[in-house]
């Protein structure tokens, strides 16, 4: 992967965090090394999560006084996905999962798009697999591939395989490009399978995702690349 490509992937993640209209809003940061962009993004994430922490914690604590369905109504119709995402990691995980059962899938998709799963690992890993699938499909439909890339590391193999089956080739390629923890990409594409990986790579140019395809190829392991070459050779 070229340095410019890595920076472009990081720029896309930073643009999403800042709520900008797509990664094109930050083309001027493509010159910045990816590691520096990542450091800046991490610092901004800390800033956003630590801000008003005391009020958010009191809000999460106050949630103990109310039934789950009331909290879900408050969340979806008053607090909104951003504030609910900030609250998720502050709630007892079982309680958070219980509340989430009363949210619509569309709202959960919006909430997940704002969530840093590292701050709510127990909640994410406790979510029922079929619910995660529904959320993944809704997030993909909304174009939230950057956000989806944050969750892959926290999904078990069964749920990941289910998501892979439900998502389109374009979705998988876009998510792979912005995946957090790219050292796992070859494992993910073992689940995708050789045939589909080849199809994704072959179709990338027509989707305008040539750079993404090159990046994916660079992150496959030597065995996978060899197998793809053999398939291409006929």
């Amino acid at each position, binding site marked *: 992967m070229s340095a410019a490509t890595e920076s472009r992937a990081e720029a896309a993640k930073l643009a999403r965090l800042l709520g900008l209209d797509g990664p094109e809003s930050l083309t*001027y940061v493509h010159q910045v090394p990816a590691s520096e*962009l990542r450091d800046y993004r991490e610092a*901004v994430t800390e800033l956003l999560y630590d801000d008003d922490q005391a009020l958010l914690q009191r*809000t999460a604590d106050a949630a103990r006084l109310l039934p789950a369905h009331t909290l879900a109504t408050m969340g979806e119709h*008053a*607090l909104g996905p*951003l504030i609910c995402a900030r609250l998720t990691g502050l709630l007892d995980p079982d309680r958070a999962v219980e509340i989430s059962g009363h949210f619509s899938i569309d709202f959960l998709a919006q909430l997940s798009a704002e969530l840093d799963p590292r701050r709510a690992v127990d909640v994410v890993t406790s979510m029922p697999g079929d619910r995660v699938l529904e959320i993944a499909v809704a997030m993909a439909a909304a174009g939230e591939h950057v956000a989806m890339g944050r969750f892959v590391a926290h999904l078990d193999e069964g749920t990941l395989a289910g998501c892979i089956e439900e998502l389109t080739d374009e979705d998988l390629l876009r998510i792979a490009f912005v995946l957090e923890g790219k050292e796992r990409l070859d494992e993910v594409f073992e689940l995708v399978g050789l045939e589909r990986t080849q199809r994704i790579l072959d179709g990338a140019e027509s989707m305008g995702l040539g750079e993404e395809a090159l990046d994916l190829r660079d992150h496959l392991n030597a065995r996978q690349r060899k197998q793809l070459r053999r398939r291409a050779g006929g």
Partner: protein
Amino acid sequence: MPRPADHLPDPPALLDSERAAELTVHTKAALRRQRRELAASVDKAFKHIPWPLRGAVRRALGA
């Protein structure tokens, strides 16, 4: 008194001053948006709390 979170991170050193300032503006805007949403939403949320519980919730929020 400035909040601890008002200490914005320094933009990447490689950016020129104009671009660094632009990135900082975007970061401040994201922070302001979040603060606005939190302030507006907590008040709005009270409408959904059953009357008998509102006092207890207000006390828990320190309001």
